[in-house]
């Protein structure tokens, strides 16, 4: 899932200055799982903004609303008229949600309440770790299921650098050395010999380096177009 954290409150408070009617718009998928921008968090954030406004004597109306997802239009299209009635939508969805709502909302600005950070998982409650970099050309079958691009601070493809210290990365003791993990894992699987093969320079064009991506599934896009025509 996509993991993000709510922006620091002072930064959000600055963002809403000058607006009279603000909607804090939550999303109940990824950002709800990381307790950053779900319906509950949107409600709390809206309350805090109202309390701050009361303290500062600022006249501002703040409401909250949430839908299941901001990345598929059928969820917020149901409430889009209501959403358009505000001067500012403070989106508590991830960056995808902010961008996508902006495309469909018309003349109302959409600001981000979330700093979207990475693709990750939840090893235990309250802990979120980055596990994938979305490089577009997955080689996890060659590294025992452990991603060197996302989890090695230098995205090395052929083995560790000289900075590994007791299994930790030179950048921080909180970061496991991905290559240390890869070697141990492949030992466990009996496939260590695969690591002797040299991985040639990657084609990064499949990742963000190649420009923003667009994928079209013809068989679905065509079917939908036919439906619409009917």
């Amino acid at each position: 899932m996509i993991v993000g954290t709510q922006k620091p409150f002072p930064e959000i408070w600055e963002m809403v200055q000058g607006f009279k009617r603000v909607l804090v718009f939550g999303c109940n998928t990824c950002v709800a799982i990381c307790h950053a921008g779900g319906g509950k968090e949107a409600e709390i954030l809206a309350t805090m903004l109202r309390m701050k406004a009361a303290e500062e004597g600022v006249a501002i109306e703040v409401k909250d609303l949430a839908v299941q997802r901001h990345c598929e239009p059928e969820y917020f299209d149901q409430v889009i008229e209501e959403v358009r009635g505000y001067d500012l939508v403070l989106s508590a969805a991830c960056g995808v949600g902010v961008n996508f709502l902006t495309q469909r909302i018309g003349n109302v600005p959409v600001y981000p309440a979330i700093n979207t950070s990475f693709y990750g998982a939840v090893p235990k409650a309250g802990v979120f770790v980055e596990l994938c970099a979305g490089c577009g050309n997955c080689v996890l079958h060659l590294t025992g299921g452990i991603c060197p691009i996302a989890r090695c601070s230098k995205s090395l493809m052929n083995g560790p650098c000289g900075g590994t210290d007791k299994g930790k990365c030179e950048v921080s003791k909180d970061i496991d050395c991905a290559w240390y993990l890869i070697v141990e894992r492949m030992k466990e699987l009996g496939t260590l010999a695969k690591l002797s093969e040299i991985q040639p320079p990657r084609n990064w064009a499949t990742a963000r380096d190649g420009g923003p991506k667009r994928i079209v599934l013809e068989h679905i896009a065509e079917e939908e177009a036919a439906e619409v025509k009917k």
Partner: protein
Amino acid sequence: MYVKKLMTTLGIDPARLEMFNLSAAQGPRWAEICTQFIEKMRAFGPSPIADGLRKQKCV
């Protein structure tokens, strides 16, 4: 507690919020807690929110 952290972010003294655990049968204890807390809050004075609202009404 998490809510106290949020209060601090807003510049509100976290001591203005306390959680107490009692059963419906503990009437006297309930009265005692209320009285004590109200006295405590009187000493604290109006919260920043109360202050802010009062200023708004004057404007």
